[in-house]
């Protein structure tokens, strides 16, 4: 069941960035951090690109397909998760638009940006939690060893699954860690107020 470990690992990495994003939003709202638009753009790029380009396609193309074949009771859940995957592109476009608006207009529209970001974060956490608490336990018990061998082989065909073809998402993750203020990241304290 290496595929399950890969999914857990990717959820952990994504969750770390989602958590950091919430921390940065808190800091800007409370006046502790100046808005760092390079950081906000990097985090939005990560939480939109990595799921849509690397994480969801593996689930859709291999795990979900096999679960539909073997576990009829999972159909409604899989329909919901696939719909959430498809909805992702629309939600990320809205979030990127909100950032451009915030960067252009300034602090007067921070509340709008924050609302869009919080909506995105809540939907992402909800989706990850649904997969962790409903999908993966169902997959673990409902698929046979041969099913897992096929899914694992497909997942493993992509080495360093969340790094991206040229390691670009690995580099993006490091950039985010180096920009997010302490204690969540190791970013420069100069980016924080007072």
């Amino acid at each position, binding site marked *: 069941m290496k595929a399950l470990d890969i999914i857990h*690992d990717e959820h*952990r990495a994504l969750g*770390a960035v989602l958590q950091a994003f919430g921390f940065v939003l808190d800091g800007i709202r409370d006046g502790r951090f100046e808005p760092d638009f390079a950081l906000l753009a990097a985090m939005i790029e990560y939480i939109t690109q990595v799921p849509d380009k690397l994480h969801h396609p593996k689930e859709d193309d291999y795990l979900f397909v096999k679960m539909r074949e073997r576990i009829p009771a999972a159909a409604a859940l899989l329909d919901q998760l696939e719909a959430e995957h498809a909805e992702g592109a629309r939600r990320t476009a809205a979030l990127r638009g909100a950032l451009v608006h915030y960067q252009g207009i300034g602090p007067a529209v921070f509340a709008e940006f924050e609302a869009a970001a919080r909506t995105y974060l809540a939907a992402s956490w909800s989706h990850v939690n649904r997969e962790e608490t409903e999908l993966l336990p169902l997959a673990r018990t409902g698929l046979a060893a041969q099913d897992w061998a096929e899914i694992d082989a497909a997942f493993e065909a992509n080495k360093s699954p969340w790094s991206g073809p040229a390691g670009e998402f*690995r580099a993006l993750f*490091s950039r*985010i860690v*180096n920009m997010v203020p302490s*204690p*969540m990241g190791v970013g420069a304290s100069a980016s924080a107020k007072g």
Partner: protein
Amino acid sequence: MSELLKLENVRAGYGDAVVLEDISFSLGEGDSLALLGRNGMGKTTLLSTLMGAARQHSGSLRFAGEDLAIVPAHARAHRGLGWVPQERDIFPSLTVEENLTVVATPGHWNLQRVYDMFPRLKERRTNMGNELSGGEQQMLAMGRALMLNPKLLLLDEPLEGLAPLIVQELLSIIRRLTEEGGMAVILVEQHARQILPLTRQALVLERGRAVYCGDSETLRADRDLLDSWLGVAAH
């Protein structure tokens, strides 16, 4: 892979108190081992025994062909044992760069390579050790151990107390270190599932005794076994 470290029936502890009983395993050059177990099972004592900070009561402990029992603790780092303790132990009154260079030993790892691995340390090179955040201190502790150019790197719970974002970053760096294979690594951690994919071998301690010594992948695949030995720490 030629043999670097070999423990045979090692019994060790502090003073007369025995913490570890009958520990045997070996590690090749460039190999990697996850040292697992619940709190208080002897993981840190095993690293302390390798470094000479705990007392070896009996058994054999050989490193690079030499009997470590006759090598004093202060000389073990120069034999090629690099230790990153839980407390990190960086020098608070030295700058980041001084912390790195004060221990430097010629070899593959130099200041430039450490800065490439930890770009944040380069940005903070003139800051004092006590001005760093917890994540930066952990990076410095690891960077400093690399500057020794050890044959074996001992990492004692390097992820403890750090934010998830930094944990993921350090896991990625440790993965690079183990995959490059230039040095052997023993990694102590509570959260088995996060580190088993990074290491080739695993050793699980329970009440000071080894209950599993073998392939990481086999252990990782056996969810029931992991849960029984490590409980919530398995995840």
